[in-house]
């Protein structure tokens, strides 16, 4: 006799217990600490903060631990937590020109005031596995130098002085908030940048790459890429003055792109912009390319039909929490819908068979 499957409740409880045990792993090994994750997996922590839209390295490390290293799952944990937090206000724009840079490079000038600083980069490492790391050998400390000047002007500023690059119109004093209002299209650039800043690195990387291969090409140069700490300053109305509430690590990328111009307006370079929490160069560069591609209308360019130019396409699909949820939800039970399709397909086949029999007679 058939008995319908019961025990969903017990199955869920047991699955969670198994998950917890797997997360802990071999009990003979010491427990992984969140302090270790924060300090030693800093780039993973940065990605979770950036796409989780919450600057808190300790919570990001906790999320990575809880998610067993699945960064999108960790980002999800951070998002779900973030949404429960009250919103007190918005900071003044961060002064990235006053960033305490650990890395700052420009690809468009051989040298720039403030200097080219490679910083801790993978760029010129040879990708050879360092087997000595298997043996947990100690790493000698790196040589030290004097800190950079406190002000490090933006490279695009030098182009701006000559009028060689477009000036950006001022944004609204109160920025829009994607997490507090539904996304309505068309979206202004500030909102687009907000969506891209929390968008999936892999998705943006693929789109950015597509622009370089001709799907919305915009001839980018990295005008400047900088990584470092900046102060976050908040106006406190009750106090009547501004207070520095935090220092956060940011990666900023400004691209200098193909020029526009006409008979009436002389040629000028254009810009793309990328910004991400933590040390996240790939994300910042990709974001800048996609930002630039999305500006085709404003800059009087042609819509070539490229995916990276399509605002609704990009903004509707760049969020990895939305995407992974919807893609993966098809593993939930769908047998009611499937049953209705089964009935329909059987009926269509029956009708078709009856039709061909009738034709044969």
């Amino acid at each position, binding site marked *: 006799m058939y008995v319908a499957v019961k025990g*969903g409740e017990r199955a869920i409880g047991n699955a969670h217990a198994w998950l917890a045990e797997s997360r802990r792993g071999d009990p003979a090994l010491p427990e992984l600490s969140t302090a270790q994750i924060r300090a030693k997996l800093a780039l993973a922590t940065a990605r979770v903060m950036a796409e989780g839209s919450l600057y808190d390295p300790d919570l990001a490390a906790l999320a990575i631990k809880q998610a067993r290293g699945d960064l999108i799952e960790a980002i999800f944990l951070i998002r779900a937590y973030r949404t429960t937090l009250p919103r007190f206000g918005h900071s003044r724009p961060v002064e990235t020109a006053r960033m305490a840079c650990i890395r700052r490079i420009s690809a468009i000038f051989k040298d720039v005031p403030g200097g080219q600083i490679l910083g801790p980069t993978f760029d010129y490492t040879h990708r050879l596995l360092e087997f000595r790391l298997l043996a947990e050998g100690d790493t000698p400390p790196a040589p030290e130098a004097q800190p950079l000047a406190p002000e490090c002007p933006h490279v695009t500023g030098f182009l701006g002085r000559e009028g060689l690059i477009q000036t950006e119109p001022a944004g609204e004093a109160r920025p829009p908030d994607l997490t*507090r209002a539904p996304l309505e299209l068309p979206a202004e650039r500030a909102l687009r940048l907000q969506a891209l800043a929390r968008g999936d690195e892999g998705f943006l990387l693929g789109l950015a790459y597509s622009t370089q291969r001709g799907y919305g090409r915009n001839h980018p140069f990295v005008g400047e890429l900088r990584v470092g700490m900046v102060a976050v300053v908040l106006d406190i109305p009750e106090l009547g003055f501004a207070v520095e509430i935090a220092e956060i690590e940011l990666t900023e990328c400004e691209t200098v792109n193909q020029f526009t111009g006409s008979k009436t307006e002389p040629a000028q370079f254009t810009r793309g912009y990328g910004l991400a929490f933590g040390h996240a160069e790939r994300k910042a560069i990709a974001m800048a390319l996609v930002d630039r591609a999305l500006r085709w209308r404003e800059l009087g360019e042609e819509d070539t039909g490229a995916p990276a130019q399509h605002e609704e396409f990009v903004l509707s699909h760049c969020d990895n929490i939305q995407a992974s949820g919807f893609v993966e939800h098809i593993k939930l039970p769908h047998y*009611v819908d499937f049953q209705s399709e089964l009935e329909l397909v059987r009926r269509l086949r029956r009708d078709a068979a009856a039709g061909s029999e009738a034709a044969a007679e």
Partner: protein
Amino acid sequence: MGKTVTGYNFAYLDEQTKRMIRRALLKAVAIPGYQVPFASREMPMPYGWGTGGVQVTAACLTPADRLKVIDQGADDTTNAVSIRRFFQRVAGVETTEETERATIIQTRHRIPEQPLTEDQILVFQVPIPEPLRFLEPRETETRKMHALQEYGLMHVKLYEDIARHGHIATAYAYPVRVEGRYVMDPSPIPKFDNPKLGDCPALQLFGAGREQRIYAIPPWTQVVSLDFEDHPFEPGRAEAECALCGATDSYLDEVIVDDAGGRMFVCSDTDYCRKRRAAGHEGRQGAGEMAP
């Protein structure tokens, strides 16, 4: 189980968020079938698992409510269990599996067989709220089409189905027209359930979290499944009776029971089936084991 967690507001969402959702709900009720954008929150379950329904339920729940949660018609499917447990933990409300005892029913993919009453709210989880989405992917365009009642594309699609297959080839999420105005996606319920949408005494609310849309069918609203005079709408169900309770009027799940392709049909609505068996109805496979 049933343990309420501390540190969260009643029903998880903060009151500001609930107010925002309630305003969207009021607008949705005022314009039946119209999709109201709302600032959907990130919930502690993934998009696609019912975040829209959960937010609507959270905004409607009061401590006196009795909640029922079903998925595929059943109270004991894993995601229904999970959502029910969520509200037990964050709202501490009473839950029930009995349709007539529930004041709020959150559902995925089904409408209960037991007719609903004026004292009930049915909350649907919606994946894609836009009935025109697969005909026109751009939201900017579909909003215009709704504004202008430009639904010709949908009728052409249904007509093409008939030309190609002899029937309208949509078996679930079958589009309806609400109160003669908006074409609406009833969520992926089988079209068998479509006739229950119209003139329903209960308030029907639809929440799409990822897509940030809420819409509604107020009580006693006209809801018509799209069709043609010479190809009228047919609800459709398996031509069988429930093997457990013998019902011939309920929506049936097909269950494969052996390697040789043997199958049986049982009610998708587990509460309906259990009640019938308790009342002495018996199908060919016997009354089955009564759930505890």
